[in-house]
């Protein structure tokens, strides 16, 4: 599965809005749109660390790394094992 799709699937499985037609682009800010909440952020950190065998450091905990699908993918790819 493509990285973008994998991340999208994870977000869709953890939405806090329950509209069957919810739609967002890879550049939409999922936090600002209210699609996910702060608990999701923790789940996302755990998901990225376990799925991609990465460790997210304290200084990488910037919302800008995790607020869009493209930013999440870029962040994962920026980590050494995915370079």
């Amino acid at each position, binding site marked *: 599965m493509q990285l973008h799709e994998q991340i999208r699937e994870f977000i869709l499985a953890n939405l806090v809005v329950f509209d069957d037609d919810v739609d967002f682009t890879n550049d939409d800010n999922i936090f600002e749109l209210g699609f996910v909440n702060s608990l999701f*952020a*923790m789940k996302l950190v755990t998901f990225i660390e*376990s799925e991609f065998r990465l460790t997210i450091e304290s*200084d990488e905990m910037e919302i800008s790394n995790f607020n869009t699908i493209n930013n999440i993918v870029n962040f994962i790819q920026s980590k050494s094992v995915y370079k």
Partner: protein
Amino acid sequence: MKITSPHSILEEVRQFIDEEIRPYAADFEKQQALPRELIKKMGNKRYLAASFSEQYGGLQLHPLEYGSMVEEIGKGALSAAMLLTVTTGLVGETLIRWGTEYQKEQYVLPIARGEKIGAFALTEPGVGSGAKDVQTSYEKVGDKYRITGRKKWISFGEIADFFIVIASDSSGNGISAFIVDCEQEGVRVQKIQGLLSCAASQLADIELTNVEVGSERLIGKERMGFTGVANFALDQGRFNVAWMGVGLAQEALEVMVTYARKRTQSGEKIFNFQLIKGIIGDATTNVHAARSLCKEAARMRADNHPDAIVQTTMAKYFSSVVANKVASDAVQVLGANGCCNLYPVERLFREAKVLEIIEGSSQIQQQIIAMHAANRHYQPKRVTGL
């Protein structure tokens, strides 16, 4: 992470509890404090760092083993287990996850040695479950942060050497977490009196007036205080509280069963009455179910599973409800004796209620679980025509 010695540490812990904790549980509450000597002994045995890796002076227990240890200590005295929940879970684990090397050296290692106690200062007089609305604020002044506000219901706040303080940016842009030492200028600590139970958890009201901390005391990045630090810490706390609930329920169950087998009424041991058997059957099943949820949460945490957070929430919710039910039933089985402090169930009954309130009330847990269910159990094709 593997369990290398599933029984050795628990056997040692049980012996320690039998000698140092259970016989004095009621006294701790009367004195409204855990003896400093007991805390020192727990530190020397590295119980206060049981979940930490060896690198941070810990016993590096698997979450299953650590949870069982919290259960055992919770059986002995809830306030002693509360110390692990606060200083080991909420504070120590959070600093290990998000703290700098300086913070780990200055605060985590002393926790592991039993030299320092940390407390977690999130709750405020008007802010409990809605933690995002904290009124304690900070502003950046030069290269320092200046914090002002009031925290309330802070477990072990009375004796903590330092606090993790959650505060909001004065411009409202986000929440950050700081380490504040208890002896700093502008920190005022006042013990809270008149508690229903768990007085030995030494709850305090913390007033912060223009308390200055340097950037070396900021935990993680600025504005990750709620999303990163507070949520992570509460998840640690809930895992501990879940196991504390199992411990308290197990203790109540053991007293209930023992009493029912010994107590004679109308020439018959009361255990032989079918209605008493019904109570004991339900209590046994519920304690087993609560422990099973805790064990599953522990396994998922060890695997770093993204749903471990929700599993932990379910374990905390269920086990704290079960603790209340079993403690209440134990009082019922003991009758008038259950309402008297000559028997431990009177204390267990009062202590159980606290578990449904701390680290997120039962209602908050239900909300988190329901949101999870709304995604996981939604089958739109099975229900149509609406």
